């Protein structure tokens, strides 16, 4: 049975050529861009069209 363990993202600091200050700048820029992206992708509320009256067929 699969456990519910979700992978933890690994940072690999050994790879980073950025200073801590730059990392903070990147984090901040991402946060800002993501917030802007989230705002844009929220769909505008649609006005629900009134349901058409169902035509009832009657026998002639």
């Amino acid at each position, binding site marked *: 049975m699969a456990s519910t*363990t979700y*992978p933890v*993202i690994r940072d*690999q600091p050994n790879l*980073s*050529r950025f200073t801590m200050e730059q990392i903070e700048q990147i984090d901040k*820029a*991402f*946060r800002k*861009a993501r917030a802007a992206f989230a705002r844009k992708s929220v769909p505008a509320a649609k006005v629900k069209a009134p349901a058409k009256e169902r035509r009832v067929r009657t026998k002639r």
Partner: protein
Amino acid sequence: MEAAEYRLQVFINCPFDRAYRKLFYAIVFAVKHCGYDARSALEISDAGELRLAKIFRIISACALGIHDISRTELDSRSRLPRFNMPLELGMFLAAREFGDAQQRAKICLVLDRAPHRYEKFCSDIKGCDISSHRRNPETAIYVVRDFLRGVRPKVTLPGGKFICRSYAKFLKTLPAGCQEVGLRTNDLTFNDYATFVARWLKQTEDSV
């Protein structure tokens, strides 16, 4: 190397040219999204170390390998094909064959652009698990995700569609991150790109 660390390292062996970059970026993103470390020969720029020694060192540190052997075209200038990817696949398979117990536990995914195409140029690997990405980054993400899902069945991974959606969002915000530190999206080194991916994913993780 500690076993726990070793089993989370993924060696990515693929072309490094501009034409392949979209696939490479998608594969690195999928690997990191699934909680693994992406390793590549590009990560070290130490001119003092022999390239082959560097690749052997990285391969020996990785339990997993993703090898793309799809680049078979002739180089436009030299009119010769590139053999680095099949060579590094061979090095990985040899480590698995002749190495110690840890090395023998290596698992790899071989990628090509179409099913059964490899049989015409590298038929000796017939019988290995070979998947095709069809030169499509989304397909590559699905294939890599499914491979990593199979490696550790007890760990729940996000689905391919979810990772693709995350990747699309990441690509939209990447220019903002690059701009902040004075870089252009097209000029990122592997190390820079891997750091951007990790920082972006960390934020996703923290916000859950």
